[in-house]
């Protein structure tokens, strides 16, 4: 029996040793390779949120915008974007679903920065985050016409309510005013935005100008639907001597490297297996040609244009759109700022400075391309003639990645005009939009993005489906 005890005790000992040698702590369920969301400093969360917005606008929205503003048309010898060019795109498309997802992904970080900044009373970051929040929300609401805003990006609310465009516009205005009302000098001095701010490197004067310009843009978008809101808002801005952007608000750090280049180039050229889908549209091409605009040679690799949407019968030799991996992504370009001011001046300040601002806008647009001026003069005619000139120049200036902005402005102002003639008709006026030859919507141009299918499936508050061609709020009636 003694022997037995010896063995029992030695076995128990061995067992105990083996077990105690094992770590038995079970509180090990945090991923050692990742951070908790609360551990990211604002300065480190900022650049990813900025490029997040640029990724969405610079690829999904830029592609759709470029087709619908008729910068480009689908190649006759490739297939990639046919559904954008013939308007058969559906709510499950990667453009509608992906753009929405990418924007809200970026907004999670933007709103996290904003919340942290509010807690710390860091009004610098608060203003930057508000600018980014409003900028991206305006793009979203102008595309989709209704979006979750006040309940969005909150993990506690799985079915955020949608707010109408009008509601969103009112909240955006209030949010911007709130951020602008803060005294930046009271911000902590030991945590100031710097080089990780990819847009202005932490220059708060620039951000204040950006916020003012954004406010101006918000008011201007309402000229048709709520003229009084537009006019009161802009007059207040002007009379307060608000400073507007006098430089590009852009991300310029792109380089010719995988996953670090301009998102439109990255998506359409580097990652796609056919890089010649985007061809010169007759709409933009003929306009530049007729106006001896030397940006023509920068936009396309030749002067062979294709009628918009003529991909079934078009030629393989149509000129291809030039894209560069290092092109900036503009949030608001200097040219756009000038054209916005020109329109504000035209509508609400007697138009005395409109011509100057128009010319400054055109010059800024040309310098983006290191081109020399074309033959554009300010008409100094009726409001509509002047407006057409401004919006048309903005249309050209938004090439290539801000076509969605021109699409919004066309919705609002009707410029560029929509041609009643085929582009092949000798009487066709260059630069006028033309219904896609392969169009599948019975002559109606697209006016909006449809709500993403996956949002419809997962968010019970998604409004009922609205067709691509249904007019949007800011179009007025």
């Amino acid at each position: 029996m003694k022997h037995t005890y010896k063995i029992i005790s030695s076995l128990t000992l061995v067992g105990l040793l083996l077990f105690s040698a094992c770590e038995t702590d079970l509180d090990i369920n945090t991923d050692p390779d990742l951070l908790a969301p609360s551990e990211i400093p604002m300065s480190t969360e900022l650049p990813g949120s900025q490029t997040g917005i640029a990724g969405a606008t610079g690829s999904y929205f830029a592609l759709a915008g470029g087709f619908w503003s008729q910068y480009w048309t689908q190649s006759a010898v490739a297939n990639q974007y046919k559904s954008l060019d013939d308007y058969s795109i559906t709510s499950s498309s990667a453009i509608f679903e992906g753009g929405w997802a990418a924007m809200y992904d970026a907004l999670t970080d933007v709103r996290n920065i904003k919340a942290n900044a509010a807690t710390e009373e860091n009004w610098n970051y608060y203003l930057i985050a508000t600018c980014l929040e409003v900028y991206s929300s305006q793009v979203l609401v102008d595309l989709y016409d209704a979006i979750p805003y006040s309940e969005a990006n909150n993990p506690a609310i799985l079915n955020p309510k949608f707010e109408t465009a009008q509601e969103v516009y009112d909240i955006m205005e209030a949010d911007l005013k709130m951020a602008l009302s803060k005294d930046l000098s009271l911000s902590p001095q030991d945590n100031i935005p710097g080089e990780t701010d990819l847009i202005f490197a932490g220059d708060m004067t620039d951000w204040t100008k950006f916020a003012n310009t954004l406010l101006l843009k918000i008011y201007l978008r309402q000229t048709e639907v709520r003229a009084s809101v537009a006019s009161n808002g802009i007059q207040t801005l002007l009379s307060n001597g608000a400073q507007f952007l006098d430089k590009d608000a852009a991300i310029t750090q792109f380089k010719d490297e995988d996953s670090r280049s301009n998102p439109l180039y990255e998506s359409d050229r580097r990652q796609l297996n056919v890089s010649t889908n985007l061809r010169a549209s007759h709409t933009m091409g003929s306009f530049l040609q007729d106006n001896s605009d030397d940006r023509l040679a920068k936009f396309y690799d030749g002067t062979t244009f294709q009628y918009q949407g003529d991909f079934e019968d078009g030629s393989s030799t149509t000129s291809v759109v030039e894209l560069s991996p290092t092109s900036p992504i503009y949030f608001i370009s200097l040219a756009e700022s000038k054209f916005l001011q020109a329109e504000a001046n035209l509508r609400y300040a007697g138009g005395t400075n409109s011509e100057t601002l128009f010319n400054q806008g055109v010059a800024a647009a040309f310098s983006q391309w290191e081109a020399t001026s074309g033959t554009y003069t300010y008409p100094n005619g009726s409001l509509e003639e002047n407006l057409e000139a401004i919006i048309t120049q903005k249309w050209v200036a938004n090439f290539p990645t801000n076509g969605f902005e021109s699409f919004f402005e066309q919705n609002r102002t009707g410029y560029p005009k929509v041609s009643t003639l085929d582009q092949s008709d000798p009487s066709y006026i260059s630069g006028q939009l033309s219904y896609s030859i392969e169009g599948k919507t019975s002559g109606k141009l697209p006016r909006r993005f449809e709500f993403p299918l996956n949002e419809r499936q997962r968010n019970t508050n998604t409004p009922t489906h609205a067709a691509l061609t249904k007019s949007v709020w800011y179009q007025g009636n």
Partner: protein
Amino acid sequence: MISLLKRCVFTHKVIQIKLIQTILQMKTKFNGILTLLLALVVQFTFAQEKQISGTVTDETGPLPGVSVIIKGTSTGAETDFDGLYTITAKQGDILIFSYVGMDTKSVTVGSSNTLNVTLTGGNLLDEVVISAFGTKRQSRSLGYSATKVSSAELTEVSTSNPLESLSGKVAGVDISAPAQPGASAKVIFRGFGSITGSNSPLYIIDGSPIQDGSSSSTGATSSFDAGSGINDIDSNSIESINFLKGAAATALYGSRGSNGVIVITTKRGKDKLKISVSNSIDIHEVARTPHFQQSFGTGWAGVSYSNVVGEGSLAASNENGSWGPLFNGEVRPWSRIIDNQQLIKPYSVLEDNIRNFYTIGSTYSNSLSVSSGNEKSDVAFTYSRIDSDGVIPTDNDSFKKNNFGLNAGIKKGGFSARMSANYSHKKQKAVATGQGDDASFGKGLTQELIQIPNDVSILDMEDQSVIFNTPSYFYTPYAANIYKTLNNNFIGIEKDRFFGNVSFRYEFNDNFSTSLKVSTDIDNEIIKRHGAIVEYIDGSPQDNADANGVVGAVSEGKYTRREFDTYFNLNYNKQINDKINVSVLAGINFNERNGETLYASVFDLDLPNYYELSNSASTPNIFQSDYVRRVFGIYSQAEVSYDNKHFLTLTARNDQSSTLPIENNSYFYPSASLASVVVDDGSIFTKLRAGWARIGNDTNMYQVFSTAGQASNAAYFGSIQYPFGGVNSYEIFGRIENQDLGPEITDEIEIGFESRFLGNRLGLDVSLYNRKTDDLIVNLPVARSTGYGSVTGNFVDLENKGIELTFTAKPVVTDNFRWDLTYTFTKNKSKVLDVIGEESKIAITSAYGVNFYAEEGQPLGVFYAPSPAKTDAGQIIANESTGYYTYSGQEEAVGTSQRDFIMGLRNSFKYKNFKLAFSLDWKQGGKMYSYTKRLSHFVGNGIETTYNGRNSWIIPNSVIEDPALLEADENYEYDPSNPDDYIENTSAVQFDKVTAFYNMTQNPAAERTHIIDKTFVRVRDLSLAYNVPSDVVKDLGLSSLSFSIYGKNLFLWTPGDNPYVDPETTNYGRGITSEFGEFATNPSQRTYGASLKLSF
């Protein structure tokens, strides 16, 4: 064919030489080891013993493979083909003769040196199976279904993966064989039980769990199959495999047993020194290649010319498809024009164009095992080597593996110690499947193969000295030269694997014992990958056509996975009286798994043909992942038997898992099962069984908390990665925190019976089960406006019900001839009972608009696809201008991946020394997605694309929206419920638009046609073995010698719906996503082989 034959003959010579070399090498290599082992054995040899020999027979004659063991020892022998055995024993020893399906017989050794034994009747139920923690239990005592596969069945045909030949042979288990050398096998017990987690069973080797992890890359883009953990086990070292199916069988194994348990026992040394050698040579050819249409050749939209830059609008077609005119046999020029030269060929079909691309592959397997044992100690050592090259030209689909296995034990008094150890080293190369990626590693092989017009010879593209075959002058900018693609893409996998355990056991007395087992499993894998740069010469046709080059890429990943498992058990066994026996087990178990991954890649290489991570000016991508998880379990089992006829087994286990929220990480699960032998009169045997069990399951690691990490922004096909612009950034990731996450709870009820009639000539084993899993953990996708992508939680309830049946028969049993038949039938019906939230569907995976869901009220895995708009009356609404379908953006259900049934039939015929066996495998029903079909349609190679001879047609039973209504009111909204809104469709799909009808960008509603029937019938294997008669064998100085020839995957039948792929191939891994289908995956192969086995 002539060239193939030549190749065969040539290979044979190589094989012979290799074989001899290998044997010679092995002999010298192992001389040292042998001496060592012999020395060990000699120590334990005793002088009083004598040689006993004899013949074991049944009613039909000599019985080979009978196990002869000296009672109370592990000393044993096995009868040879003539039923002969020899064993060293002492007078008074009791010899136990046991054989599958026969009554076990005990005979005491007397003074005679000859002991002839006849085994009778009997049944499978006296077979011993290994259940939890290495406890041996009689099959008759089990209250649940378990199937045992013996070593002989496993190695009937040579295998590189122990499970590959078992498809259709185990009822209730769906096994898909690996398609390529070294690829993984998919094993699913009683239906899929988990959506996000693993569905792989738990593998227990010699009593300890091992990992079945995989470093494969799955999915639609540039995926590959690197095999899985189970591939590192050597089939030759396996003694038996037990498939424990029911929850009652697996409850004691803990969470991981919820997908079924495969218990593998390796060979142990028995009796005198035995050396066995087995060699086999397999020849592989490609099995299924897509069947293509044979009427139309190169071209697009009905014409055979294209507009080619520099050659004009009537140049030879540069299209990647067979949308040209009808074949007419005329010899005509094609290809690009280079220096005023062009190739010519007849415009006619090349029937076996794709098949001819593949070559003959081969596998050499060699194995040597040495074993010996007596009552004090035993040792078995196995070394195996596999050297395989698949059917794809080059050795890019090759697989080499060396395995060393050792199983040894010593015993003194009540104390015994045992060690089992396995080491394997593998080198594998794989060919990427799925879609290629020009921005990194380049094209995918199968994807490029499908795009070759069926009149353009693939074989002729090999010679790179022909300028027309070089990338810059290739005939099409839309696809790449297959040989170039093959040579440009390298995936090399190298792995070191060690697993094993040591155990100690002490028997205090006849009733009470204790055991401790400690195991380790270490898996180190390196995967190196590169893709070559493809650039086009300035001004060359490809350059002019703006064809995309490939930027080139290099990656290297290191994966380490470890598992440590320890258990400590107390066992108590007591015969209360004549009738009642009680045995109780209690124990604790500690399990830890941890590991690291480090992966780096660079894209856009600078120097060609130089594949190092330094070879790029661009920022490297680095990925790092460390993990550790632990489970701490306590458990107990009690078994009460009455009269050796009625058996009640109760188990209980409580686990604490680190993967669940700390406050809620403990879960308890009990089980009860009952087995009752109701008839056992020698000719009829019937056992009833019933069981109820609960199994709790934890989840993957790190699913509870929200996380943040390095930022990466989506940009449609591209992305923006950090570091960027000289700064770094972190962002909040897409999973919402869920502190309420709890364990998945599975409840299963199983009833069944086993019956044998006519003295074991007929047998039937039936199980019915109903398995219900509550609170299944899934990643529930959330609305993206929340800023997040998903939340992990207990959101789904799932049910699996089924029947599994095994029928065995011996229709003919005579002295010289014997026919054995085994039939298995399995039917599993799954149903998603509840999906939490408003949405009743959860997406599992998708491709090109085809979604695969878990949907409430449906079997797990329902396909939804874009579908034509229809009126409420069911008529298709066509598009007036194109004649195509209209697509409203709505998706429609098009079936489920669930099979109707699976059945297997195995026949074996033994005539004198010959044995012929074959297995049929029939898996009926279920749908799968086939990208091969989609692409074949797009490029006009698909058979269905010749519908109506490609002449214009009108979609049958279709209408169009009445245009008059829109003319009258430009805002008119058509209403599918109003028949007056539609008029008969007279718009035909025109000849030149037929091509685009099969282009899903333009006709998205046709995506649904890519979901096909995955039914198949297959001749899984066929073998003919010849055992050399024992007198001849003895003259040769051997103890056994056998030859066999065999074939694997010899014949595959699929319904007309699927002329494209072997439905068991997939590049979506082994989980529920693998049921989705295939995305231009590599083909499976057919094998012809021969083997030689000898022992002395």
